């Protein structure tokens, strides 16, 4: 009886610490890449930044609950579509922000001495990402 309680409490501590560590790491990764600051700046809604933080926090909390406890969300195909488009936009921006923060583009531009046709590069990057995603899903990889 005693040993069982100790085990449960130990597991509880492990779970709690794991959760805090994961949340800190993942959300630092999202915020420090500046994706959301970018969104707010692009749309000129900088004064709503605290609201966006709430949305991010709420999304993280609910998303985690839904995943861990396998909660069913009866939203239908329309709900899935909404989730898909917004999650896709977010992931796309995130991937690009990661490349940006790691200075991938400036390094390549300098090495290859590219000074013009930046727009072509950006468009081909986006099309490539989209095609890659399509290939991945339609091939069932």
């Amino acid at each position: 009886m005693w040993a069982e309680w100790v085990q449960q409490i130990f597991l509880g501590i492990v779970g709690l610490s794991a959760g805090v560590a994961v949340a800190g790491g993942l959300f630092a990764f999202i915020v420090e890449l500046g994706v959301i600051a970018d969104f707010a700046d692009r749309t000129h809604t900088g004064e709503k930044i605290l609201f966006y933080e709430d949305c991010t926090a709420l999304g993280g909390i609910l998303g985690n609950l839904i995943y861990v406890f396998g909660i069913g969300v009866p939203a239908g195909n329309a709900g899935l579509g909404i989730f898909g488009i917004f999650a896709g936009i977010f992931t796309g921006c995130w991937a690009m922000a990661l490349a940006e923060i790691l200075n991938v583009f400036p390094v390549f531009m300098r090495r290859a001495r590219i000074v013009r046709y930046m727009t072509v590069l950006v468009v081909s990057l986006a099309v490539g990402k989209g095609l890659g995603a399509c290939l991945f899903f339609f091939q069932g990889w």
Partner: protein
Amino acid sequence: MASEKGTLYIKGSRDVEVTKPDVTLGDLLSMECTDRAVLAKIRSLKLLKFKKSGRQRCVVSILKIIGRIHEVCPSLDVQNMGEQDIIVTYEDQKTPALAWHIAKTAFVAAVTFFGAAFSIMAFNNDVDVTKLFGQIYEFVTGESTNSITVLEVTYSVGVTAGILIFFNHFGKKRFTVDPTPMEIQMRLYENDIQTTLIENSDRKGEEIDVGGVGAADISGDRRT
């Protein structure tokens, strides 16, 4: 005219937004001088003139501003306590459509909400926390389990607490007086943009400086 004595202290911030096409020094700078009359005169000095319509932006060197002051008060000692280059943005202030603003905010809110939900699920899926929880549970208690254990519950509590501690607020309620990480990011991003704007216009030679503008003013050193 050359009777002004004393020192004029000027301080400007790096990024100024104006709504009138005629920009005076008072719009760009805060200033202090012992001689009130001089202060009022210099405040109303015209520096720039934008075209009436649209959004325009230019970068003004503080030297140009000091030069403009010296045109009027040659003997005045001017001390700059603020930035050396000032970005002036003129925007024809139409009342922004509220519906459009709300739509944009709703869009960003949806992207951040679903994006964050997707990210945490993608992470959980990637490291397969369900399996890992089962393994830890079996390691500690010696029994395998397929149902929800204390680990899932405390992990979720932990994730929630971690997110709220990290963002340092929920809704209007702040946990400490520090700015939140997102506010800091926002400022950093703005700073980067301002630095880029100033350096771009300097490199292209578009900055309004003493060397480039006004043919009589050839004594000014062009910066390279």
